[in-house]
């Protein structure tokens, strides 16, 4: 392309811009340097399938945005230090008490900093929403078989995001150095200690010495605000890159095949909807942060190694681990001068290790059992894969039983039964419920498969009438305008999707040409 003279006059400049004005000019300048026109057009036309379950991952993405934004705000006031000081801040009942700088700064950013409490509570809620949406999103991926070839790598990235986010959530609520979170760190230290051969060394290296040490809060802080978020952000980038590269999965039907993607284009339809969704997710977290109190650390008090409070529970996403730790029988093995505390090692190290390994390996396990090495872009209906669906349901049941087991003391108190009975109930439930749920779900899937081809399609309403003798008859109603209407045949996204013909030229058939 011949070099273009730089326009000297206003008129020359206007002419140089071409029929698309400034936008065309900017595109031109960018395209000269970066070659963005062709790929950019493809990106604007990228098709997003319309299905509600595809929004679950978006909730996770947008709550991560909220986490970053509110987290940056918090770093400006929080002081990651276990230095002891006498509190003189805004919260009167605490004045004169010995506290750490971490605790004092968290209380003060809640009470003295304008909008500080809102930001802190939003941050905590956003973490809970983030983890929750990741879990539900993964369940959708699992039950519809979206993890199958070619998307195994993205399943692995997603699992890693889950593990890292769990860790960062735990670390995050440990930072205020309040009585409940400090107890969590004490348990973490004991869990690390339980690992044979290397446990004591890892624990001492992590905490910089014997518990509690003086440096763990500083270390957790840099892990929480820099190391893990950087890795998580990078993995989210890789997750989305693979999504664009491999394109979306979609449910079969309505002309959707393995060779196409049908839905709305990136620009403007999807962009408008998803940006709106970003705002709505942020709104939900803001309302929670503003109206629903979470983690009122000033009520718990400063952590001290010899103090403890009643009903110590972690955030919900760590509950299954706490439940497992509670219902484990008290086995400890001592021989040859060494001790292996299975009572902690099995539920807190081995068990989550097995669960996560199983999840990571699931695509490979399933491929091995089914012998299916084909590329899949169309999703399964869960009922059509009864064994997978049963396995997933059993796993979810196991998690819920364990979550319930983390509340043994509260349940015993609430129902006024002995702790012993509650404990044994959960020990039995954890073995019985998951297989039962699995079998039950498997049966339901088989039953639903017999439902015929039109199951799941919208049915026309019928009127049911009862005669004087008690007999029932059904009368079909007249078709409504929206019933069984013909789906449009999908078309590629045209350039012009505005609705009024512009003066630029349009022939009789409505075909628009651009003349310059």
């Amino acid at each position, binding site marked *: 392309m011949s070099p273009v003279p730089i326009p000297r006059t206003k008129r020359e400049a206007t002419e140089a811009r071409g029929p698309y004005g400034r936008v065309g000019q900017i595109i031109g300048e960018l395209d000269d340097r970066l070659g963005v026109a062709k790929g950019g057009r493809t990106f604007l036309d990228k*098709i997003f399938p319309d299905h509600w379950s595809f929004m679950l991952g978006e909730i996770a993405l947008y709550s991560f945005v909220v986490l970053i934004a509110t987290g940056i705000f918090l770093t400006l006031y929080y002081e990651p230090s276990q230095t002891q000081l006498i509190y003189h801040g805004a919260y009167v009942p605490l004045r004169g008490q010995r506290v750490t700088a971490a605790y004092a700064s968290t209380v003060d950013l809640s009470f003295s900093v304008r909008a500080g409490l809102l930001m802190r509570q939003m941050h905590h809620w956003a973490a809970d929403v983030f983890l929750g949406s990741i879990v539900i999103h993964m369940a959708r991926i699992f039950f519809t078989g979206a993890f199958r070839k070619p998307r195994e790598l993205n399943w692995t990235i997603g699992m890693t995001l889950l593990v890292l986010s769990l860790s960062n959530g735990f670390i995050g609520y440990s930072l205020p150095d309040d009585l409940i979170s400090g107890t969590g760190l004490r348990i973490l230290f004991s869990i690390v200690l339980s690992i044979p051969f290397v446990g*004591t060394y890892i624990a001492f290296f992590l905490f910089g010495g014997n518990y509690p040490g003086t440096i763990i809060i500083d270390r957790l802080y840099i892990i929480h605000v820099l190391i893990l978020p950087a890795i998580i952000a990078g993995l989210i980038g890789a997750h989305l890159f693979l999504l664009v590269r491999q394109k979306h999965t979609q449910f079969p039907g309505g002309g959707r095949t393995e060779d196409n993607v049908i839905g*709305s284009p990136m620009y403007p339809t999807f962009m408008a909807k998803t*940006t709106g969704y970003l*705002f709505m997710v942020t709104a*939900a977290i803001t309302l929670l942060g503003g109206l629903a109190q979470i983690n009122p650390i000033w009520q718990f008090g400063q952590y001290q190694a010899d103090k403890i409070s009643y009903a110590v529970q972690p955030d919900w996403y760590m509950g299954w681990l706490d439940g497992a*730790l509670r219902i484990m029988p008290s086995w*400890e093995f001592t021989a040859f001068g060494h001790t292996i505390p299975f009572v902690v090692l099995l539920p807190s190290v081995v068990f989550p290790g097995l669960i996560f390994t199983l999840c990571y390996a699931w695509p490979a396990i399933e491929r091995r059992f089914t012998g299916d090495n084909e590329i899949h872009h169309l999703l399964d209906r869960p009922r059509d894969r009864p064994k997978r669906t049963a396995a997933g349901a059993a796993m979810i049941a196991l998690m819920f039983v364990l979550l319930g087991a983390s509340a043994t003391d509260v349940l015993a108190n609430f129902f006024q039964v002995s702790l012993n009975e509650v404990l044994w109930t959960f020990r039995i439930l954890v073995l019985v419920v998951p297989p039962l749920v699995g079998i039950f779900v498997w049966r339901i899937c088989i039953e639903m498969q017999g439902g015929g081809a039109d199951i799941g399609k919208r049915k026309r309403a019928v009127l049911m009438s009862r005669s004087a003798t008690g007999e029932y008859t059904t009368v079909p109603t007249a078709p409504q305008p929206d019933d069984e209407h013909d789906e449009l045949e999908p078309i590629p996204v045209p350039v012009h999707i505005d609705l009024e013909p512009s003066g630029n030229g349009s022939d009789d058939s409505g075909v628009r040409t651009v003349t310059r």
Partner: protein
Amino acid sequence: MTDGTDHQPMPIDVANFDDPHLQVAAVDPERAERAIAVYFFIGMVGMGVFGAAYWQNWKPWTLGLSLGVGLFFIGFGLSAWGKYLMPQGPFTEARHALHSSLAERDAIAAALTERTGVVVRRRSMLLGLLGAGLGIFGIAGLGFPLLRSLGPLPGKALTKTNWRKGSLLVDGNGRAIHRDEIDPGGLVTVFPAGYENNDATLAIDQTVLIRAQTGPLVTEPGRATWAPDGYVAYSKLCTHAGCPVGLYEKELRLLVCPCHQSMFNIDNGAVPQFGPAPRPLPQLPLYIDESGFLRSQSGFDQPVGPGYFER
């Protein structure tokens, strides 16, 4: 394309304006537009109220409510705009196979294997030396500083408390405990005198002192003198996961750990009666000195707290 001279008239894409794909999804677009305008207006008001609430430093819930309402209606309006006032489609795009041609696959595989054969495998000594160098770098250059600098080796730190022969029992404020001071059923957390405010060792030294009864208490054979006047002392560190065993059920004479509900009977050497704790709480042998204050006969006879490999 910035050069106007070769820009010929050209059709960009076929787009028939009567095509139903390009019609908006709303049945009544005018009404949808009015509704969305209302949403955006409520959003604006919400944002304005948030600004005022922030400016005037109103209560946190007003900030959350106004900002949340503002964000929600802006988002709801935007989503509705996308859903109802933009072309309804459906649109399609072709999905192309990701894989390359077999020839391209062969080309990269051949390049890798053959070049490796030429430049690497024939220099196996160099490869070995490089590997050894990098391995040593990994261990000595990365592993040592990254790991070993993080903290001291455990050594005896998990075993050693500050309880010695003759240590005076003091509470968190450093006050010694006199034999007449606590009534039966009473409880206090004690430390060896001089270490009650030592944050580094307080966690491992913490001991719970209970006046179980008025007469001496024999918790186990061989511990006849350990609990004079019914004063019995156990390590406060749960043998399960190391939480402070902070609850005392006076009637049941049980020490309860609030974390995972291990229960220890104070009358028989704190043997776990319930819950996941695998071992009794170590007992601290006590005596009463000539002034009537409680002191320890010695340190604990075993490591306190949760289990670990070297224990």
